[in-house]
Every structure is written in structure tokens, then in C-alpha cells.
């Protein structure tokens, strides 16, 4: 009897070892009780289900399936929770890789933990340059485990927003005959917004002939990221005679802007960065006043950045009932990781890092190639993001559409993502400025 029990125990142990050896555990990190974390998880879930349904990943002759581990970093709530969550995932849940993340200050701490334990962390949700710049380049051996999959770093996000501003200014010139559009900057009080404001202030007044925007800056307003009313700022912007407002919002003040701007019918067209305007619930959140708001974004209805964009959006929307946020980029992160593992034909960390560095993968947001900082390459051949505007109750893409990245050197290079539509100047803005 005793020997039978011993045999059974041995068999169970052996079976358990075999099963656990054929699983790749991936920690999906995010603020899981918030929409950003929810989309981290949902994006990763879709990818894991697809990969497992296709037979998993075969490495060194053994087939592995993917098992996701939910890592609630509670990043919205300040404190040591984020560090705890990641360390627990590595030491207790024994995750092999990490994907996700959202808030910069939490990400800086969490990635330190990942590097301590030599775990690869694919960042999918945080844009701050500092996450990689000054780390991978200055101390490669410590920070080589970090890669960014989405979104593009904040400098490039700003660059995309400038290009979109230029296109909206051109629209004012051609459609309304305003040769020198007046611009107001409305940016939340946050560190990441400051360099954007400084750079834009210099660019707006510079003439078109020298590569500037050829407009006129009428003022800069910096409300709190948690402001509950922007009536005073918007009224001042209207009085200053602005025709376009360039927004720089990542926090809830973005919703306040959409609500007050639409409710007061302030005669300025909006363009820039407004993270809240990327969410499916934007119109509801703004009480229906957020129509025609525009922002740099990642996903929109019907736009086909790459052949996988539309199928992913459709699948995500039908499964979870809403458009994916940029944090759903964990979907691409998982595929990029599996692609690297397959090419490395190994699960050894250093081998996977080398394979990741050689990544050239067409994802749902563009062609992903990592630079020497392990950051996304940005530009016409790589990832650019899109310009999103709310038209007829739907977020649609208005950029890149007939975009000429370098008219002087490459006059024939014109980029248009299928499914993009023209930017629409809000009707009350058009009525106000027509003929003036």
C-alpha cells in the first residue's frame, strides 16, 4: 500500500513538473481596477488565447502554452504597492516575463525590480522618455531587460501632435482664408507637458519658410491635471482671439476640457494630446459635448494602419464591447515576445534579449523595430500613431492622410492610412470664423 502511494505521489510530482515546465508564465502589469489595466489584461488575454489555440510556442523541440498572471500594480494609488506586486509576481508567481505598466513613477520603480531579478519587461502603456533613455544607453547590462512596445516615447507623441496641428492650420488657411491662424496652448501642469509647451511656443510663431508653423501664439494656459472647470481658461482663450487650441492632457482634466469646450461653444478647433479622448466612453464622460475633439491616438474605428489593425480592433470590440485603449498594446507585446522566443529558439533571457533587439515585426500599430535604447523606431516606415477625431459619435482617424513627411527631399513620399477621413472643423467654429 505504501509503495502504491509512493508511486502515485511520484507520478503526480513528475506530471506536475512536466506541466509546469511547458508553460510560459507572463505577468500582465497594470492598474487592474481601472480601464487602463483592464485593457492591459484584455489585450494580453486575446493574444494568449490565439497563441495557445494555434498550438502554443515550440522552443527546443518542446511545446509551451502561455499562462497569464494578473499583476495589479495599483498604480493610480501612490505607494509601494507597485513594487510589491511586481516582486510578488516574480518570486511567488514565478513569472518568466512581464508586460504592461502605465504611470511613469510606478514604472521607474517596477522596472528596477524587474532588472534586479533579470526579467524581461515589455513596456506597453507608458510613454516617458526616462524609462529607457539614460538607462539602457548608460548602463546596458543592468537595463537591457527593458523594451517599449507602445506607445511611442513622449517626444515622438509630441512630434505627431505638431504635424497634426500643422495640418489643421493648413485647413484654416485653405477653407477659411485665415493666413496666420492664432493658436492657444492649454496644457495640464505636469512635467511631461512642459517640454512640449516650450518647443511649441517657439515653433508656432516661426515663419513657414524656415520650417515653423507660421501662426501666432496668443497665450499659454496651464490648469491643474485635476481641475474640475476650465471655464475661465476657455473664456480667456476666446477673448484672446484664438482659432485653434492645442491641448496637452493626460489626466481627467481632458474630460473637463471636452465638456466645457463643447458646452460653451468656444470658437476654437481642438487638436493635440488628450488621452481621455481616446477612450470609448469619451462622449458619455463629456455629457455629449466632446464631439469634434481630436487627439493623437493609437486605435480608431475602421483605420487600417497595418493589415492586422482592423481584425484586432474588431475582435477586441466584439469580445469586450469597447474600442481598445493604447494599453491593449499588450496584445502586440505578447506576439513580439513569442516571435523573439521562436527566433532565439530558447527561453534563456540573454538569447531572448538578442532576438528582441533584432525584432522587425508588423504589429497592429505599425512596423516595430527597436532602436539602441530598446525604444520604438518612429517615422513613416515604422510606428507613427494616428490622429483621432470624434465625428458622428465615433472616433475616426484623420491622420496620416496625404501626409508628406519630407516634401523637399522626398516629394513623392505621401503616406495615407486606409480608412482615414478629413479633419472636420467644428460647425460652430466654422460659422464663427467664416468670412472674418
Amino acid at each position, binding site marked *: 500500500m505504501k509503495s502504491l502511494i509512493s508511486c502515485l505521489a511520484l507520478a503526480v510530482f513528475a506530471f506536475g513538473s512536466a506541466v509546469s515546465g511547458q508553460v510560459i508564465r507572463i505577468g500582465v502589469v497594470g492598474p*487592474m*481596477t481601472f480601464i487602463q489595466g483592464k485593457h492591459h489584461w484584455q489585450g494580453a488575454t486575446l493574444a494568449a488565447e490565439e497563441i495557445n489555440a494555434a498550438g502554443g510556442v515550440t522552443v527546443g523541440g518542446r511545446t509551451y502554452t502561455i499562462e497569464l498572471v494578473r499583476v*495589479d500594480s*495599483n498604480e493610480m*494609488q*501612490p*505607494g*509601494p*504597492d507597485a*513594487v*510589491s*506586486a511586481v*516582486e*510578488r509576481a516574480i*518570486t*511567488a508567481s514565478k513569472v518568466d516575463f512581464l508586460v504592461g505598466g502605465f*504611470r*511613469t*513613477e510606478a514604472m*521607474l*520603480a517596477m522596472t*528596477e*525590480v524587474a532588472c534586479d531579478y533579470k526579467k524581461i519587461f515589455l513596456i506597453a502603456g507608458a510613454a*516617458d522618455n*526616462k524609462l529607457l533613455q539614460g538607462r539602457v544607453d548608460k548602463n546596458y547590462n543592468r537595463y537591457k531587460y527593458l523594451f517599449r512596445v507602445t506607445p511611442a516615447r513622449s517626444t515622438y507623441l509630441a512630434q505627431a501632435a505638431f504635424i497634426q496641428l500643422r495640418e489643421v492650420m493648413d485647413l484654416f488657411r485653405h477653407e477659411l482664408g485665415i493666413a496666420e491662424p492664432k493658436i492657444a496652448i492649454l496644457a495640464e*501642469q*505636469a*512635467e*511631461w507637458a*512642459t517640454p512640449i509647451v516650450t518647443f511649441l511656443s517657439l515653433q508656432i510663431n516661426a515663419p513657414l519658410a524656415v520650417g515653423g508653423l507660421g501662426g501666432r501664439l496668443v497665450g499659454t494656459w496651464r490648469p491643474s491635471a485635476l481641475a474640475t472647470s476650465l471655464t475661465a481658461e476657455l473664456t480667456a482663450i476666446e477673448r484672446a482671439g484664438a482659432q485653434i487650441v492645442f491641448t496637452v492632457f493626460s489626466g481627467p482634466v481632458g474630460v473637463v476640457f471636452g465638456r466645457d469646450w463643447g458646452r460653451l461653444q468656444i470658437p476654437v478647433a481642438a487638436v493635440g494630446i488628450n488621452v481621455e479622448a481616446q477612450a470609448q466612453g469619451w462622449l458619455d464622460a463629456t455629457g455629449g459635448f466632446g464631439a469634434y475633439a481630436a487627439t493623437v491616438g493609437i486605435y480608431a474605428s475602421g483605420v487600417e494602419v497595418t493589415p492586422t489593425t482592423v481584425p484586432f480592433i474588431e475582435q477586441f470590440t466584439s469580445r469586450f464591447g469597447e474600442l481598445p485603449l493604447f494599453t491593449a498594446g499588450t496584445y502586440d507585446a505578447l506576439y513580439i515576445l513569442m516571435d523573439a522566443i521562436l527566433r532565439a529558439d530558447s527561453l534563456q533571457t540573454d538569447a531572448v534579449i538578442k532576438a528582441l533587439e533584432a525584432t522587425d515585426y508588423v504589429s497592429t500599430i505599425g512596423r516595430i523595430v527597436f532602436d539602441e535604447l530598446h525604444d520604438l523606431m518612429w517615422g513613416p516606415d515604422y510606428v507613427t500613431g494616428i490622429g483621432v477625431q470624434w465625428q458622428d459619435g465615433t472616433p475616426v482617424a484623420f491622420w496620416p492622410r496625404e501626409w508628406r513627411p519630407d516634401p523637399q527631399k522626398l516629394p513623392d513620399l505621401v503616406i495615407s492610412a486606409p480608412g482615414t477621413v478629413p479633419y472636420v472643423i467644428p460647425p460652430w467654429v466654422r460659422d464663427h470664423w467664416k468670412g472674418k
Partner: protein
Amino acid sequence: MYYVRYLVRYLQNEVLVLPSRVIVLVFVASLLAFPLLTQDPNILRTLIVTALFSLYAVSWDLLSGYTGQVSLGHALFFGSGAYASALLSSHLSLPPYATVPAGAAVATAAGLLVGLPCLRLRKHYLALATLAFPIMLTGFVLAFPGFSGGEGGVWRIARLTSTRVAEYYLILGVALGAVVVLWRVVESRVGLIFHAIREDETAARALGINTVRYKLLAFALSGLTAGAAGALYAHSSAARIVAPGVVLSLFMSFQPVIWTIFGGAATIYGPITGVFVLYPLLDTLNVVIPKYRMLVFALLVLLILRFMPQGISTWIRDAIERVCPSCRVRNIATRRACRACGAPLQAQSPR
């Protein structure tokens, strides 16, 4: 041999006679022996943060519980200690044994700076004034991002020790040492004066007590303790980064209030109990039921405040011990006569 005999006699006559002291002894011994049972990095990290937050909560108890100077902006002291230490480590590459005392010193200075303009303020006016200070420091941090790291915070901070166990013992040692010193302070004449200021400042002044000096002393001592906790936190494995959203947040200011009220104010051991119950509980709830963790946490705090308004540790102490009505010496609740004077003990348990 003499000292061993003295220790045994002291344990027999002073510690083992009271259950509350036995609990403290067992608690401290368990903490010291814990790494012999397990060296799980998660559990050790949780205990490290708990020990640091205990020190932080005790600093609030000293200022607000004992002296009655209610501070709703205590994160100023924790944050200034953490920031000073982190900046010195990050910019000048100074080792923790230099930066931690410097951080504590900066927080002490911050305590005096806050104390001076707040001397004439009382009750909710004082509470609201203190609330403004961490917001001002946050503004300062955001105004000089090149130096302070801005919203993203300061990182590349030197670690306290190379191993988690060494870090645990170092932080536990500092926390225990600081608590013992503060215990001696509040049990001394100074502690009595703190009580007197809280109960009736005018009466205390009428008795010739320089209340200004003692209030400033309370602010400085509280700042020193919270600053030391903040500086150690900055170098600990739990932090890795010092950002205004973490160390200067409103949540960080309110936490010591919740811990202290939960455990029992003006007791020193109350806030420690509060932190050692609530922090690991919240950490566990974050894993088990992350969605409802704050709801469960708030319900628990409400229930404790409803049924144990003096705090959980005071409630337990009063349930297992009685005070002699004659000589005020504490006795185990099962005794019928006082262990000191022999007077009969009453059935009820007055504080």
C-alpha cells in the same frame, strides 16, 4: 551573572506580571526571529515597510495624539526626509549612513519651520494649515524638475544593504531603537507636559510651562522621527523611487491618522498595532480581492471605531488588565487584589 539575574528578576516582576507586556515581548522576539523561519523577499519587504510606517505613525501620535497639535500634512516630514536623502544619494552619490541622518535633520528643520507659524493656531485651523505644507513642497518639487526629478521623482538611490535580511534587521533595529527613545520621552516629565498642552494649554501656561518651547519640541521630535522613516524608506527595497505622488500625497498624510486612531492614540504602541494590522491586511487584500480592498479596509476601520473607539490595542489592554483604584498600578484582569498595594480591584476596568 549579576546582570543575568537582574534581567530574570526584572522579567519576572515587571514583564511577565502583565499580559500586555508579555504580548509586546513576544511580538518583538517574533520579529527578531522571523528571518530564521523564512527569508521570503515578499514577506520581508512587507515587514520592512510595516516597520517604517510604524515609525512614521508613531511620529504623528507624538505630535497629534500626545500634544494635541493635529497634523493633516504629516507627509511633509516623511517626504522632506525621503527627498533630502534621495537627492543627496542621487546627485552627490553619498552613502545611506550619511544621507539618512541628513534627511532626518532636514525633516527636523521642516518640523520647526512648520511649528513656528502654526504656534498661534488651534484645532481645525492648525490641521488645515499643516495640510498646506506638503502641497507647497510638491509645488517646489514640480517647479525645479531638473534638480528634483519633477513628477517622475528621484531614482538611482543607493540601497541600504546588499541583502534583504540585512535590510530587515537594520530597519527593524532603527525602528525599535527610535520607539524605545520616544517611549522614554513620553513617559518622562516632557510627556506629562505634552499631555497637559493637549488637555488645556491655557492652564499649562498658567502653571508656568513654556508651551511654545514644548510645542516646538513636539514638532521637531515628530519631524525627526518621520524624516528618519522617510529617509530609510527612500533607500529601502520597497521604494526604488521618491516621487511627489508617493511620498507627499494626501494619502500619505492621512495614513498615519488612520493607523493611529485604529490602534489607539496617545499610546505609542497604538499606532504600531494599527500599522502591523492594517498595512499587511491591505497588502493581502490587494492580492485576494483587489477590487474591494478599499471597501473592506474602510468597513473594518469603521467597525473598530464604532465598537472600540479608543482603538484596538487600548480595547484589548483594558479587557485583559485592570488599573488599581488606589495606586494606579496595572494588574492582570484575573487578579482580585492589586499586586503592588494589595487593594481590592474593582470589576470594571477604568483606563
